[in-house]
């Protein structure tokens, strides 16, 4: 059974590009554009990997990450944070909150696919 990736990204064009890339790799993709209710979706979908944008409407990627890490079942869930806010302090905050990998925008498609494979162990 193919692995599933949940993307939370409020920029529709980036979301389309990412979804296409991951589906092309044979992955199941579920997408959300709003931070609100995201943790509940993750709990019900139980993805193998979450790709989180940092700046989201209603609830930031950082808050979602912190919420996830506070839930036992998701303390080890791979979370790739993708953000245009690539300052050292943002990276440090994400690492402190338990991010698995922090990537800055703009990214190279090959790089993100390579990292997704690594985080999924495939």
């Amino acid at each position, binding site marked *: 059974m193919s692995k599933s990736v949940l993307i939370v990204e409020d*920029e529709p*064009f*980036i979301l*389309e*590009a*990412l979804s*296409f*890339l991951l589906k*092309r790799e044979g992955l199941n993709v579920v997408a959300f554009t709003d931070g609100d209710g995201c943790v509940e979706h993750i709990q019900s979908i139980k993805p193998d990997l979450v790709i989180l944008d940092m*700046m989201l409407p209603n609830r930031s990627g950082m808050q979602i990450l912190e919420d996830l890490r506070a839930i036992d079942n998701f303390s080890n869930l791979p979370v790739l944070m993708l953000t*245009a*806010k690539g300052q050292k302090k943002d990276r440090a905050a994400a690492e402190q909150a338990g991010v698995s990998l922090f990537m800055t*925008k*703009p*990214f*190279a*498609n090959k790089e993100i696919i390579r990292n997704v494979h690594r985080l999924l162990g495939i």
Partner: protein
Amino acid sequence: MSRSLLGTRIRENRRSKKISQTELAKQAGISASYLNLIEHNRRGIGGKTLLALARVLKVDPRAFTEGADQALVGRVNQAAAATPTIACEVDKTEEFIARFHGFARLIGRQYDRAKAQDEALQAVSDQMNSDPFFSEAMHLMLTNITTIKSTAEILSDGEAVPDDLKERFLSNLLNETERLAQTATDVLQHFEPSTQSDGAADDTAPTETILEKNDFFIEQIEGNFISPYDYVARLKLSKPDENEALDALTSYSSIARKLPIDTFLKAAKQQSYNPIALSQILDVSLNVVLRRLAYLPKHDDIPRFGMLECDGSGAVIFRKQLPTLSLPRYGSACPLWPIYRSLSQPLQPIKAFINTPTGERFLTYSITRYVDQNNIGLPSRTNAIMVFTPDYEMFLSKPEIALQTNLAVGLQCSVCPRDNCAARRAKYLLQ
């Protein structure tokens, strides 16, 4: 300089004056071997001998005996510490200063300058980091670039993309490119002095600042509720600024009286904002009509008009900028602008469509009039104005617009990328 290096200072001073040790010793009344010991800091020196040496070398004896310039020692040591990759002999700083005082001062000065520049750079960096607009704009631009980069890679990586998705991605590319261009334009406007000015920008005249703050429409003056004199008095400007503002607002007030805004707007809509027709119908000069166009209230139904005014030499006297067309304050504008053509054809109105290197298109009207024409025996001064609008579609029909030819102009040579322009007089700086 510590006293232990006093001899070093004497030696350096003697050498700089190209006096031999023997000669100095002879003139100071001591033996050459004793002077040699002094210069190598092996003998103490004071009193009479020191005074004698200072007299021969023509220096103030305190220059030899005063303690080292501790501030300079500190600065040279800090300069050394600032570049730890170069192992400087900091234990010999005092000796270095004693021997090469000029170079030491130079190092100190360079260190101070570098430090001041670092601090200034840090201040700018802090300002940018704390500027919410800049931060948001950069975030937006990176987001736009991410979409463009990722989508372009998908379309060009050689792997199959279904036709419907291909079209979708191409459309995304186009949309995102437009968004990126808009964001970049917004950033430029944000940092353009006259559009963000609170009156402090160097290249914005005080009158322009006053009018800009009011969107070039002051209701109190339009309604004659306040005289220009009282209005300007309340602003508490310096005397020269006050005079300039009073002149400009008196002129504005006069236009508002000749062409009350309601009457003018009604006629303007009926005449499709044609200034020549308006001039005839409202029985005022074309110059007054064009100026009235620059002082219209801001409204979705009313086209935006900018204005540039210059004297006979082309020097800018007044400008009303629009977000999509910023105008230089100090000359050096594109010589192809119709306003400059108008200077050579006084009283002849010129209508022209111009387009800028960034693709913006404007309808312009220009006219030059004579000022103080009755000064017998003196050349008449001239004054030209050009009004321009990007909103011509609000009052011109499509066929009419289609018939107009565009005049390709720039803003200033230094920022104009147009190749093979016969009017170019300065290099394009952004390539």
